[in-house]
């Protein structure tokens, strides 16, 4: 239980925020932060624990969002089951892309490329297909009733996304403790060795990608429920692929708390940039990019890695040789 205690405690503490403030600015900021943390947790499961760096998690985010919206608007499905259908659809897309990529033996740069390409194909299709509203986008009908998962105030949204983030953390923690998680980490550390010991690496990676896609799809479903609007650029655009990987990498890749911590840092930096410069387009992303490079250059295991280093004494244990993420052989990533 002690492994879950900190998660439950953090969620319980954060759940008090709407009772302390009714400020829409604060709540909105936190909702968006949690949204990125959730999308990032999905990326983290596959990228952080499985070592498969996807550059196209927008494929799952967008599918979740579109399926939720279309199920409600075109087929009259209620929002709550619609949410679950969206998650299932995202997971299915993850399973299909995962099966195709991993069965073909794609890894490293090739895997990053193919995920990017899948997300782009979906974006182009969504920007011309009639069912998605094509260039105009999709509007969810305003229906401020809890039955429709729409609320007058932001607090219920806040609690929903907070619970989703908490659940994703508990899920990832459970996977960490399971045999499946051990296999997944073994595949990340040395796929050939894992295979030699009898781990079905392909099946493990496909399963991880399916779960990863489901989590990121949940973030997409929530997005459309919260903002009530969607177009191809929001759903499948590169912004979400980048933020989903930025959060865990900055927070601490391959850790349960990394995505949430990273999302806080990224979103705070974004807000500070906006305050400092006005709403200049692009500048927040410039900062994100610089932070990404700096984090990789200075502390490859993110902020959590930095904490660990301080705890153990900086000189005794440099981050590069820490047991959680040993240096990979240079030729591994590129070859197929």
């Amino acid at each position, binding site marked *: 239980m002690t492994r879950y205690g900190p998660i439950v405690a953090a969620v319980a503490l954060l759940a008090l925020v709407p009772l302390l403030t009714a400020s829409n600015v604060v709540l909105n900021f936190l909702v968006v932060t949690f949204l990125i943390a959730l999308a990032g947790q999905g990326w983290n499961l596959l990228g952080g624990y499985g*070592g498969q*760096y996807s550059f196209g998690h927008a494929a799952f985010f967008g599918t979740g969002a579109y399926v939720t919206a279309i199920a409600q608007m075109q087929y009259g499905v209620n929002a709550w089951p619609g949410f679950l259908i969206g998650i299932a659809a995202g997971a299915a897309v993850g399973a299909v892309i995962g099966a195709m990529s991993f069965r*073909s033996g794609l890894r490293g740069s090739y895997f990053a490329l193919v995920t990017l*390409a899948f997300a782009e194909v979906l974006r182009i299709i969504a920007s011309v297909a009639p069912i998605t509203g094509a260039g105009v986008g999709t509007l969810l009908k305003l229906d401020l009733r809890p039955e429709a998962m729409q609320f007058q105030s932001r607090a219920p949204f806040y609690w929903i996304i907070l619970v989703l983030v908490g659940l994703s953390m508990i899920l990832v923690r459970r996977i960490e403790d399971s045999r499946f998680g051990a296999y997944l980490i073994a595949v990340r550390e040395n796929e050939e060795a894992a295979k030699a010991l009898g781990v079905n690496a392909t099946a493990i990676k496909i399963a991880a990608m399916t779960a990863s896609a489901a989590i990121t799809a949940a973030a997409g479903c929530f997005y459309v429920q919260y903002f009530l609007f969607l177009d191809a650029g929001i759903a499948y655009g590169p912004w979400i692929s980048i933020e989903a990987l930025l959060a865990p990498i900055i927070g601490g890749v391959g850790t349960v708390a990394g995505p949430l911590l990273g999302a806080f840092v990224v979103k705070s930096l974004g807000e500070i940039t906006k305050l400092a410069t006005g709403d200049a387009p692009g500048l927040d*992303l410039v900062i994100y*990019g610089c932070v990404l490079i700096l984090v990789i250059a200075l502390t490859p295991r993110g902020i959590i890695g930095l904490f660990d280093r301080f705890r153990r004494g900086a000189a005794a244990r440099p981050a590069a040789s820490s047991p959680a993420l040993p*240096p990979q052989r240079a030729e591994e*990533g*590129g070859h*197929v």
Partner: protein
Amino acid sequence: MAILPMLSSAILFPAVLNGLMTGAVYALVALGLTLIYGVLHIINFAHGALLTAALFAVFLAHRWLGLDPYVAAVVLTPLFFGIGYALQRFIIGPSAHGEDRNILLVTLGLAVVIENILLYVFRADTRTIDLPYAFDVIEIGTAVLAVPRVVACAAVALVTLALWVIMRTTLTGKAIRAVAKEKLGAELSGIDVAHIYAVTFGLGTACLAIAACLLLPTYYVNPSAGNAFVLIAFTIVVLGGMGSLAGALIGGLFIGVVESLSGLYLGESLGQIGIFVMFILVLLFRPNGLFGERA
């Protein structure tokens, strides 16, 4: 392809010829990408952003200094070689800690930074330059070819030849090939691998500067202009075999023709999907490319 005979050769011939000319510039962008991949074994995700930066550099050279793009190439090619060298030597190399996964992320980070600085400075507006010769044409049979595209085609042939000569005859070229083949062995025989990596990255970036100079007379620039080319360049590089220079050249010309023909038969936006679908199919079924050197 069964519908091909339906169109007369009077339409087909110019489409193929134009495709080859577009393909030549694609090939040049792909050449830079494949060169970097062949030696460093990384996919440079900043390639598109660097191409956009080069396009803006050409644009500014024309706007501020009145430099013709073809003249600007003389200045910009060494400049971008230097930029590429510095990026690899001082940012990408040291940040990587020897891990490919880190290099992926650093080049992605660079792409985000460069693209958004350009967006911040120039906003999302699309710009073009006016040149007196932009609309000059040459007629070959039934085909009417724009002069800048013919120039581009010839220049790409020259650049490819120059690259080939550098790789085959100079000491640096030999060192690059040695590092590509066997990094540790090269290091043991006294080659400065970090320097060779940076030189290779510089050469790849210099290809982009030339491509930008050849493109701008007939093309436009905005902060995401480079991306269109780079996804195509990725396709070409994978199709031609990662790291294969000849593969990039042939792949580039091939994709140029495919794009031109599919645009003719399917219309613009579907033609774009065609490229992606082909890309995914090639990645999934022939990840070593049609001319890949290694199984």
